[in-house]
């Protein structure tokens, strides 16, 4: 259908354009085919029989336990109950999010390729740094920071914070790359330098996006608290892991409930803030 029309095109441009497009189209098709092939191959080679038959008694037992949360654990004044530990977890997650935001924010401007049209090497190098930060699993950071500041919430804060610089840095940079450049262009046209353009033409548009990405990572940090339990870095992680390992589903259930409540609250906050900033 489309071919018919392409002949009637009157402004047929130089022939090089057409061949370049053709290469682009073929390149695109080949890469799509390749990705599809990989996906299909992955799906095809999984051994789906490699699982135990669902055992209904286990299922019902687990669920009946999950539905009977251990309410006694919510608060007992010992400082090792859900409320106290959850508070600690929230503080860990919040601080790590702040650290990550504060550091990832400037870094994302260095690693956004659209801001460095004349020096493409800089964003590539900056992105590589965030890639390295992301390549280390959280657990490794946790071990390192326990070694540095000793076991406790402080190690958790640092571990999550450093890990999230890499994650947020990437997402921030990508949103800078895909933002509307019109307003920034207008600032540039009055002779504003990079900083002024950014302050007036970019940050107002990016603020809501960055804020919601950061808040998402606040939530992710709350979830990651479980990993911190592995190394004794504070929060609800350790009790959660102990409860899981010993199949104390009613304890798991109350801990999970705590996390859900907190995350839902953060989520509500996120929504409100996004609406305000948009």
């Amino acid at each position, binding site marked *: 259908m489309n071919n018919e029309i392409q002949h009637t095109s009157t402004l047929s441009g130089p022939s090089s354009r057409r061949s370049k497009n053709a290469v682009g189209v073929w390149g695109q098709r080949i890469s799509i085919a390749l990705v599809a092939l990989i996906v299909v191959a992955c799906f095809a080679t999984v051994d789906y029989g490699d699982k135990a038959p669902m055992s209904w008694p286990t299922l019902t037992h687990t669920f009946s336990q999950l539905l009977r949360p251990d309410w006694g654990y919510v608060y007992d004044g010992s400082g090792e109950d859900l409320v106290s530990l959850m508070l600690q977890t929230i503080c*860990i997650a*919040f601080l790590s999010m702040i650290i990550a935001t504060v550091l990832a924010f400037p870094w994302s401007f260095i690693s956004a390729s659209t801001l460095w049209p004349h020096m493409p090497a800089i964003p590539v190098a900056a992105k590589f740094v965030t890639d390295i930060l992301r390549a280390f699993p959280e657990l490794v950071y946790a071990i390192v920071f326990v070694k540095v500041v000793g076991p406790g*919430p402080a190690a958790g804060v640092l571990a999550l914070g450093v890990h999230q610089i890499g994650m947020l840095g990437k997402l921030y940079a990508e949103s800078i790359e895909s933002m509307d450049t019109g307003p920034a262009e207008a600032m540039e046209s009055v002779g504003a330098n990079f900083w002024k353009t950014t302050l007036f033409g970019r940050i107002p548009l990016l603020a*809501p996006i960055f804020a919601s990405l950061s808040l998402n990572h606040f939530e992710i940090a709350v*979830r990651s608290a479980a990993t911190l339990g592995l190394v004794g870095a*504070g929060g609800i992680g350790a009790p959660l892991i102990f409860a899981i390992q010993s199949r104390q589903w009613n304890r798991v259930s109350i801990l999970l409930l705590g996390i859900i409540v907190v995350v*839902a609250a953060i989520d509500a906050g996120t929504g409100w803030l996004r609406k305000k900033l948009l």
Partner: protein
Amino acid sequence: MSGSPIQRSAPRRALSQTVHRHLWRNLATFALIVVCVLGASSVTGTSLIDAFENADQAADFFSNLLHPDWPYFAKLWIPLLQTIRMSVVGTVLGLVFAIPFAFLCTRIVTSNRALTAASRIIMDIVRTIPNLLLAALIVAFVGIGQVSGILTIAIFTFGVVGQLVYQTIDTVDPGPLEAAHSVGANRTQTAVWAVAPQVRDDIASYALYAFEINIRASVVLGYVGAGGLGVLLNSSLSLQRYDRVSLVILTVLVLVVAVDWLSGSIRRRLR
């Protein structure tokens, strides 16, 4: 210029009429954040000075990683392929469910507020469950193995990508949506025709972002008997074989860089 009435009406310009219109509100917000940060640091006992003083300990740890055990790669590549396979399948499964669900979470495909709210809550809960717990629950139901690993990854991806996608949908340019509405398109058509093109490159990059997280998540998934790089990382760590840890991390780094490059090139193409 002929603005005399204005000049008269604004002989003195209070700060509140300049760009500092919300100065006090903004300062209060800032102060609140500072207070929260201070409060949180005292609860957690975080002190950056302490961290910097002991930075040599971190250096000590990382110096262990400087000598990768290259020959070990011979044992690494099968778990590597397992990890990639698990991540690919898990991510794709998660995405397949997450994208339509993300549309349900916004007011674009349904006007039923209750449905929207319910979808968001479901997504919240799914997203909230820590990986370790998710893995434990799934193992309790379907036993250990790859399938459990894939299910864990898929559910996690569903939660994370779903949220990112619905937040992106909330911020698309409403113009094309209006245009689609104005020709009588129903909500699904609007979603497919006016929203999807605007968010497709974001979805692509979130998908790759999730894929990347999933590769690292296999560290946790090693626990469910799903194999993969995670098992190697964990055992090398606990046996203090840092030369092997280093090789595993380097492998992950290569994957991360590759995914990042892919994400960048897809976005460039779509932009």
